[in-house]
């Protein structure tokens, strides 16, 4: 039995208070998005809607839907490709180390900490040169490339837990590097793929800097479209809040159903080596 550092009522009081702070934006978002525009006045901000009105969702959906589709086209291939690449790299860097491979790994890792502003000007020139500027395939390329460090890190740490003996006995049975990857590593790394997949899905879905600089108008992903909602002349807060919820829904749902894996990714991505 552990002794308790706090008296129980006090403990729950503090936790509840903090929870209210964390949930406050959700409450405001929900009540605002369910109000018709004439009820969205500053003074009534905290009041519950007098009548439930879904029209702001309809309006937000009409404006965001094409960008929502863009983002799907972006996120699915980018997530799959970067997970696959990360898994290959992680396999090599954990089970087929060569001289200097640890420094290669460190060199790759640096790429996940850089401010992307420091590569943006050449990147855009490069994408123009290869005709991928202002296109979803261009954004896929960008997310796959700059996803290499984090996905490699996650898979390398993940594969470190697979015992060396398994690889060695497979080698004695005559299996080569690819057979081992295909028949031993991949089946054992389903969880790894789920964790990395969720992580990349969430990050790419939520990303803004590449999206706003590499694409314009119709090609833009959801977060740029959401940001543009507030650029209009009259700020329709109800539509904006409905839009924010719609844009956040996919990652929120992923968190709700697969939150455990999301948190694992969070911890895996931060604990080095």
């Amino acid at each position, binding site marked *: 039995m*552990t002794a*308790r*550092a*706090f008296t129980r009522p006090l*403990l*729950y009081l*503090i*936790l509840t208070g903090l*929870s209210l*702070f964390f949930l*406050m*934006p959700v409450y*405001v*978002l929900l009540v605002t998005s369910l109000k018709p525009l004439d009820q969205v006045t500053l*003074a009534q*901000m905290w009041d519950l809607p007098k009548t439930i009105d879904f029209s702001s969702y309809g309006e937000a959906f009409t404006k965001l839907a094409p960008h929502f589709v863009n983002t799907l086209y972006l996120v699915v291939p980018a997530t799959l490709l970067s997970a696959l690449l990360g898994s*290959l*790299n992680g396999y*090599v860097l954990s089970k087929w180390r*060569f001289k200097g491979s*640890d420094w290669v790994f*460190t060199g*790759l890792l*640096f790429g996940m*900490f*850089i*401010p992307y*502003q*420091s*590569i*943006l*000007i*050449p*990147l855009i020139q490069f994408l123009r040169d290869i005709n991928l500027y202002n296109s979803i395939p261009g954004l896929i390329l960008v997310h796959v*490339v*700059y996803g*290499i460090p984090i996905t*490699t890190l996650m898979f390398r740490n993940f594969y470190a837990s697979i015992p060396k003996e398994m690889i060695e006995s497979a080698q004695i049975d005559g299996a080569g*590097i*690819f057979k081992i990857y295909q028949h031993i590593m991949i089946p054992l790394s389903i969880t790894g793929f789920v964790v990395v997949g969720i992580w990349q899905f969430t990050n790419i*879905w*939520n*990303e*803004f*800097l590449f999206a*706003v*600089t590499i694409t314009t108008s119709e090609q833009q992903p959801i977060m740029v479209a959401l*940001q543009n909602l*507030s650029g209009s002349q009259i700020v329709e807060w109800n539509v*904006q*809040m409905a839009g*924010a919820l719609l*844009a*956040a829904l996919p*990652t929120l749902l992923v*968190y709700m159903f697969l*939150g455990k894996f*999301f948190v694992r990714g969070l911890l895996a991505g*931060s604990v080095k*080596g």
Partner: protein
Amino acid sequence: MNNGITTPSAQQLNDGKAVAATNKKRGITTDRLLSVLFILPSIILIAIFVYGFIGWTGYVSLSNWNSLVPDLSFAGLKNYVFLFQDFRFQADLRNTLFFTLLFIAIVLILGLLIAVLLDQHIRAESLFRNIFFFPMALSFVVTGVVWQWLFNPSTGVNLFLKKFGLEPMWYTSVTVIPGVEWGKIQFGIPVAILAVVIAAVWQMTGFSVAMYLAGLRGISDELREAARIDGASEFQVYTKIIFPLLMPVTVSVIIIMAHISLKIFDLIYAMTGPGANFVTDVPGVYMFETTFRGNYYANGAAIAIIMLLSVAIFIVPYLISSRKREAS
């Protein structure tokens, strides 16, 4: 050899073994080669897209390219000199400094507090955990949009604060405390930045909670028990045993939060923009606007390089030390 039936001699058996051995050896060397081939594309991509492009940006930052037409003639440090004398960039440095300090301090303290509370064998732990974690699954853009509404000075949280006679201006305030003259700007904490700090804290505290919670769960109950038997109070168990053991977690959280805060762009762009007198401007927003809205490419590149250096100063030692720690 010439008759049909042969029985393998000892010599042949040995040869066979030798062949198998060379085969195996050849197999492994081919595999070795293949393993490098597997990773080579990633190495090349990162070499070009990270290191090559950084070099290119560095080159642009030393050029005269400050219009729509690329002009890569050498300008020396002109763009850097301009920035450090620029009112807006000086404001950015001040804002980034205080944003980073406040953001990290609050995320650490609040995160540790919540983690310790959650670690007290409470009911509904997973419910509470999810309440603190879910903002991390959101985009900074979503957070920015929602908190802009909440911190609207004539509404939002002010509707409550009014009852206590408080009516802060939040992100519309241009006050800088204490506001001593320094270069072209007033130095101190811009009040407006607090609104952004609160929004960022709301989004990222879950990260430090998760990290500290994992750290706390890794500390054995026996250790706590032993300390109690030695007569330590519950308070001392935390301050003398547990908090020191959590130091590596604290370092990790500081590093991760610092690099997020030094390159922050989307939250501020979505929530407040540069603000009046640039009270909420940061290098990320300035770089974006001056490069892609104003076509001052060389200035933008110089801002980007300064951002990169500010991150590299502590990321590089951190990466090298964790590499060495792993090697030993």
